């Protein structure tokens, strides 16, 4: 009488929905306790159950057992997840909500539900790494012309909403030359330190927009006596593709990268982007079903590499205060680094080891900033609402610089801080470290060595 009707078990339709079906055991483990409500950023903004982790898992479950179809509203709720993984940490059963959501997106894409704009960006541009540098150059030129013509008060900015972009946004500027066009494929330090050798997976943002991050990474590695190879064939890590549910395209990217970044020849494959790192380390195998044995274990975030392979003691001998006066800094944990790769101490240890820098922890440093890569464009209003909490937490610290470890977070923080606290700088941890190492002369690459690096 009591238990009989308590759990209505419905057979999952694994044949009809193979991508979601793969995670049916994961879905069943959600006990609907609702503890994820406390941390899901989209639920906290909307206070709406269908915009939270538990609601989304319930909707996927309903599709899988035939109670619901792959409807427009389903698509909307599944798309509005920013993939911050906060729910996974809060979940008593450790349900991998992220995997379930991505599988649902793949199911939607398999039925032709990838929006045209995303299709063009993902399959047309990002996929063809070769196309990107020229496109980046063109974009850079167009942007510089437009920005020159349209300073903050300009009427041209009023046109931005036409392409669905808030006229207040501070948009990232494409570099005139991509990072990989500027550097050779192999860089040998003058004074080899511990004889370490790494392959650098640059990632699109550091290659095309935040070339300063990639520059800084090279400077730091050189200074630490690490030999760096920047394989030419590497391309986009595939995160934007599998995040949108386009597993096929992502899989192709992954294969190109795994071939380009030969792990057998190096001590580590280094990344400066949290999302790239997560993709290479976990998602290639877990989401894309690729055999990454021997590859994933070699991938390291640059902060992790420095702390674990080079060591903080070696670092301390080389760093000097990056400025004449003490700098107060704080650190924002990228979701894909802290929850994605369990890396939270290393960036902080590096920052604390730099003389003349005072580290101040912010409130909820691992709360999502609302960036989420393309999310800030496809879900701008939500992204903005989520960012407001982060901006507030950063301001409370009184820091002059907010550091982080992911270009996507840099883009988001720079955009929203510029509106209310333009004095606060946003930087990658490695950029600050490069400054602290820069008192010693850093060898510049001779002009004749510069070759045009191209990828896949």
């Amino acid at each position, binding site marked *: 009488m009591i*238990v009989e009707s308590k759990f209505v078990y419905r057979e999952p339709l694994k044949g009809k929905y193979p991508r979601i079906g793969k995670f049916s055991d994961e879905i069943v483990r959600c006990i609907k306790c*609702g503890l994820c*409500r406390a941390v899901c950023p989209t639920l906290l903004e909307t206070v709406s159950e269908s915009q939270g982790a538990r*609601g989304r898992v319930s909707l996927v479950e309903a599709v899988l057992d035939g109670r619901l179809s792959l409807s427009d*509203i389903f698509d909307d709720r599944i798309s509005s997840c920013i993939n911050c993984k906060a729910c996974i940490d809060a979940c008593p059963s450790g349900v991998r909500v992220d995997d379930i959501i991505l599988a649902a997106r793949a199911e939607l894409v398999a039925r032709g539900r990838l929006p045209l704009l995303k299709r063009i960006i993902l399959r047309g541009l990002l996929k063809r790494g070769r196309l990107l540098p020229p496109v980046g150059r063109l974009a850079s030129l167009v942007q510089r012309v437009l920005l020159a013509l349209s300073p903050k008060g300009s009427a041209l900015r009023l046109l931005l909403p036409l392409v669905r972009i808030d006229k207040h946004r501070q948009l990232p500027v494409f570099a005139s030359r991509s990072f990989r066009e500027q550097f050779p494929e192999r860089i040998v330090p003058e004074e080899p330190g511990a004889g370490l050798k790494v392959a650098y997976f640059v990632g699109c943002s550091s290659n095309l927009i935040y070339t300063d991050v990639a520059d800084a990474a090279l400077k730091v590695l050189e200074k630490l006596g690490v030999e760096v190879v920047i394989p030419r064939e590497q391309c986009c890590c595939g995160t934007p593709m599998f995040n949108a549910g386009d597993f096929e395209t992502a899989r192709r990217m992954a294969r190109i990268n795994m071939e380009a970044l030969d792990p057998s020849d190096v001590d580590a494959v280094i990344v400066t982007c949290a999302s790239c790192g997560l993709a290479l380390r976990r998602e290639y195998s877990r989401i894309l079903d690729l055999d990454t044995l021997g590859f994933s274990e070699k991938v390291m975030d640059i902060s992790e590499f420095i702390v674990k392979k080079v060591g903080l003691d070696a670092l301390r001998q080389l760093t000097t205060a990056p400025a004449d006066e003490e700098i107060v800094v704080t650190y924002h944990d990228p979701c894909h680094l802290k929850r994605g790769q369990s890396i939270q101490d290393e960036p902080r240890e590096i920052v604390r080891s730099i003389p003349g820098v005072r580290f101040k922890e912010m409130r909820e440093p691992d709360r999502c900033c609302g960036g989420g890569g393309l999310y800030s464009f496809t879900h701008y209003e939500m992204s903005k609402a989520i960012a407001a909490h982060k901006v507030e937490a950063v301001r409370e610290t009184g820091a002059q610089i907010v550091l982080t470890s992911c270009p996507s977070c840099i883009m988001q923080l720079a955009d929203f801080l510029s509106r209310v606290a333009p004095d606060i700088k946003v930087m990658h941890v490695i950029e600050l470290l490069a400054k602290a190492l820069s008192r010693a002369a850093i060898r510049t690459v001779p002009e004749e060595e510069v070759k045009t690096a191209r990828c896949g």
Partner: protein
Amino acid sequence: MKDSTLKKLREIVGSQSVLTAKEELLCHSYDATRRSALPEVVVRPENVEQVAAVARLCTEERIPLTPRGAGTGLSGGSVPLKGGVLLSLTRMKRIRELVLEDLYAVVEAGMVTEELQTTVEASSLFYPPDPASQSSCTIGGNVATSAGGLRCLKYGVTKNYLMGLEAVLPTGEVIATGARTVKSVVGFDLTRLICGSEGTLAIVTAATLKLIPLPEHRVTILAAFKELEQAARASADVISAGATPSILEIMDPVTVSVVSRESETVLPPESEGCSLLLAEADGFREAAEIEAERVQKVCSDSGAVFLRKSSETEERENLWQARRGVLAALAKLKPITILEDVTVPRSRVVEMIRSIEEIGKKYDLLVATFGHAGDGNLHPTILLDAPFTEKAARVEKAVAEIFGKALSLGGTLSGEHGIGIDKAGFLGEEIGEHALETMRRLKEVFDPEGILNPGKLFGGAESES
């Protein structure tokens, strides 16, 4: 649902707040019991006037109306068994007043419990009720079930912190119960009648909550025993010795081994194969330390093979992690966890635990028992694989037997989760025919058309989707 009714609902709360999409209905169909039933419409009011207008409409048109907070309940209380209107109160989440000198706060029903706690703790005040779901659950739901938590032993449950309520009757009138004073004897105590009524008498829209000074010091004690009975006996002896720890938790060997294996907690290796008691003393520094020493001594006298005491925040946190991680660890072991909530007088805890063990063996079910030994509230949890169709009958019999045993020991069906749907059939067994009839008549006074949260407490609802 009639179009004219939907139109009226939209006029009351605005069309944005009337949800009829299948997806929205599905997302408001369940609570943490995994029971589910689809409502016909979800309504999200933002103030008490809107709640009143919705209630009036539902009574006029005889539409079932089920209030819901965060949907974290463990008895099916917010599952809309008869369809109709699902009233989601999560948008009403303001703190209306925080009066430091008079030690109370007036908060709306949708306020998240932990948010209230964090807010008042910033002013060195304390709102003790701490249900396990405190990070998500709402004050409205806490009032509806008189939610408890770990700290009940010393601090009591939600009803002990209620000074008054703002509630909407199913017929649409707004009533204010209680007062803002420490004492008040003005007629029937409607506050405590509505508290624990599981949304069957009125819709709670705001509560005036008593606050107390935040304890300045906390000490945690962990004790391991070879036998479960030793641990249970020690918990009773602690109380007899005149100590009142704020928390006194017990974990059986099944639970302990699962916790050690499945979660990343740091239970000391000495606890392997043992039963554990976990206690916390709090208050003024000296008092808390004295109390902690007394707890330690009793445990040691009762044969504890391992003892640890800590007042360091981090170490304490680690120890509590072990307790908080229990359900997580159990859920990782088996996907289906049937969590019960029987409570017996403290002196009968040993007998109850022994019976639960026997019943588990008798029906060949894996049962882990943990809970609040200090207040006699145990959570025997049956662990199953999904689907468990062939075991369902045995589970049902085992649960019924556990209930029966608790009642025979002078206990109660539910310490803190409520009757809801799950235990509706057993209510009469505990309180008797006349008390049940009195409750039914009270229900009619409040809710003449029987629209409010139908199928709960008294049963009588079969439809499920």
